[in-house]
């Protein structure tokens, strides 16, 4: 079975702090994704990566950056956290080879920015 893990289930940070969210997958997937989930808005794509050191902006990249130094690990960085970044963050991974491949999700990190 595919396993996607996220470093924290819950985080509380203060405005202006630099925040790192880590995601690791164990299935040698090329694609990795970061979403944020907000009530009534569903999931919105922040960034994705299709290979090591490669990244592409999603629909809402402002205020975020990402890092992918190893194939299995994809990090989301909030350079200076703000209260409007309080949300549930979900990481996902999938095979690149075919576009119909399923995305598999981690358990999520619920971030509260005070």
């Amino acid at each position: 079975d595919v396993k996607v893990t996220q470093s924290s289930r819950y985080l509380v940070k203060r405005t202006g702090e630099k925040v790192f969210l880590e995601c690791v997958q164990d299935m040698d997937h090329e694609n990795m994704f970061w979403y944020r989930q907000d009530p009534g808005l569903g999931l919105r794509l922040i960034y994705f990566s299709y290979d090591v050191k490669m990244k592409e902006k999603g629909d809402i990249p402002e205020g975020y950056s990402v890092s992918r130094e190893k194939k299995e690990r994809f990090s989301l960085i909030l350079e200076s956290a703000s209260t409007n970044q309080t949300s549930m963050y979900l990481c996902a991974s999938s095979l690149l080879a075919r576009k119909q491949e399923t995305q598999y999700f981690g358990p999520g990190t619920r971030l509260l920015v005070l």
Partner: protein
Amino acid sequence: AQSVAQPEDQVNVAEGNPLTVKCTYSVSGNPYLFWYVQYPNRGLQFLLKYITGDNLVKGSYGFEAEFNKSQTSFHLKKPSALVSDSALYFCAVRDETDSWGKLQFGAGTQVVVTP
């Protein structure tokens, strides 16, 4: 551009009754369609997907979905709902013409199954 609509914020159903969660989509090319379920404080779990072929797709936990190209719909169904089916359900679409294969999610439908 691709988009997904889930017209109902919440669906209420009594245990044992049929459950339907609606989804309509818009894409430029042919769609790849997915349903996911999210239990409280958990990530999304894959239920089923339509890629091509038979319009009726069967998935996990007794769920199925019917692809209707003329109505651009992909409704999720279960013949007899269980209390344990209470969760948040997401429909998602991927356009075959999208070079990155990104998913577009609907806003989600909360399903409440009462005993």
